[in-house]
């Protein structure tokens, strides 16, 4: 294959890491809790807080943004039906595309991630999570669902070419029995946050990631290559 086709893009393209300090790392927390208060949102907040705290301890600066999918439910269905995202869904996708790392938290529905959670990643443009560290987390009413992390979330994000962190965080109702996260859950949260901060040091800037159109152009080579099959 010959050199990639030169293409100077002047229209707005993929949202990149434009206009921020170089060493600030951006973490986007995607959570799919439905109720208020929701244990899923609670776990998402604890993971965000731990990430910020551990980063500060290690002299790094992390900016955390939250994407709550409940507010996007209608827009996500529209995106499924029309084939393109707009409005708040497009804005959330842009946030994820500009993230250095993602924390993904879902309630367990019928032994897997919720449909709302899956829909967000179904309509996310291919390649958005290429090489992106993802911390997976889930909540459920019983500890018997704990393998959902390894049987459902891990394969999903592996398929999306994300780098799934070794520690996932699962919280069942009993983990909140004391009115907050118990010490074992807090230990898991801190360990996962530590792994996330470690990974942030080595991530590529989001601006270097290509969106689908750029990737298609880069992959196609010259027209003579195409003619040659």
């Amino acid at each position, binding site marked *: 294959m010959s050199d990639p086709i030169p293409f100077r893009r*002047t229209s707005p393209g993929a949202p990149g890491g434009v206009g921020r300090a170089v060493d600030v790392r951006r973490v986007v927390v995607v959570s799919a809790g439905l109720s208020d208060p929701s244990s899923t949102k609670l776990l998402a907040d604890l993971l965000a807080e731990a990430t910020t705290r551990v980063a500060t301890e290690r002299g790094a600066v992390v900016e955390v943004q939250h994407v709550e999918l409940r507010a996007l439910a209608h827009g996500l269905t529209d995106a499924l039906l029309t084939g393109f995202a707009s409005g708040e869904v497009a804005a959330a996708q842009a946030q994820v595309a500009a993230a250095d790392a993602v924390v993904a938290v879902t309630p367990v529905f019928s032994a897997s991630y919720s449909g709302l959670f899956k829909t967000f990643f179904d309509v996310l443009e291919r390649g958005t999570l290429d090489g992106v560290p993802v911390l997976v987390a889930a909540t459920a009413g019983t500890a018997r669902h704990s393998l959902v992390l390894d049987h459902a979330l891990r394969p999903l994000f592996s398929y999306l070419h994300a780098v799934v962190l070794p520690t996932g965080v699962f919280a069942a109702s009993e983990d909140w029995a004391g009115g907050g996260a118990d010490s074992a859950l807090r230990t898991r949260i801190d360990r996962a946050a530590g792994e996330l901060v470690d990974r942030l040091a080595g991530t590529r800037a989001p601006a270097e990631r290509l969106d689908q159109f750029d990737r298609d*152009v880069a992959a196609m080579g010259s027209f003579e290559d195409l*003619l040659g099959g």
Partner: protein
Amino acid sequence: MEFGIFTVGDVTTDPTTGRTPTEHERIKATVEIARKAEEVGLDVVAVGQHHNPPFVASSPTTTMAYIGAQTERIKLSTSTTLITTTDPVRIAEDYATLQHLLDGRMDLMLGRGNTGPVYPWFGKDIREGIPLAIENYALLHRLWREENVDWQGRFRTPLQGFTATPRPLDGEAPFVWHGSIRSPEIAEQAAYYGDGFFSNHIFWPASHTARMVEFYRQRFEHHGHGRAEDAVVGLGGQVYLGRTHEQAVNEFRPYFDNAPVYGHGPSLEDFTRQTPLTVGTPAEVVERTLSFREYAGDYQRQLFLIDHAGVPLSTVLHQLDLLGEVVASLRNELGLAAVPTQTPAASASGSAA
């Protein structure tokens, strides 16, 4: 700059009456719509090619020839001719025949087709969609330009000293547009040959269309066919017109809400904001259509979709009366002659020959 309509030839139940036209009615309606389009002063009518229900448009050249015999001025085109599953030899023959019958009053738009099950009915595989489009057009391009073609490719029987008949009218191949929604390979193909590029436009946000068109323009210049701003660009559009904005919205909403492609999803208002769909008065459609130039640049062909989702023939014919007013205003705004004598696409075709 040409203005026209394009249809996909769907047979869809009218959600306001529950009535479904027969295939016979739908096919004859296509002819009546085309005649009306000429009457109200449009430049182009494009018909589709599909091989599965609920579509009736499996034989575009038959329909085009019949329409051509019943009209005098309007140009006939396709939206689209399937370059993947149709033998390029048959495309060369059918459309060259049509070119003779219509005294050159035609062109065609090539598309891949995105219905997976159709491909194997013609011995093909949708996973080879792009290579099929590239190879088949490479052959079609030669068949119209070379009298004796030796050919060997991946997808069809080899040819030895083959001559496609009839030869194109006056030795000039029909003008070709390449239609695509999101494949840069097709924009590159159009640019490589100096052919037209048509962006479907109607089911996608403007930012997407802008990128595809810009890519095609740059590649058109790169391949030495002229300046990027002179590349031959066409855009789709979708309108529903009324004397008042409210009338248009109220009439179109049940069709929108139940449309096979986007129904039961976003609201009419959201979809109107997000895509080129415009529902309103002729003045509103004129203003919206002129705004396409802000991101697509000067372009050569604007086609509107007006007859899908079960909108009945009587309504489509009335829509055409209003669309005639829209097009007259657009020509006026753009400083174009009331009835173009020589279209940009036709002259581009002439210079490329």
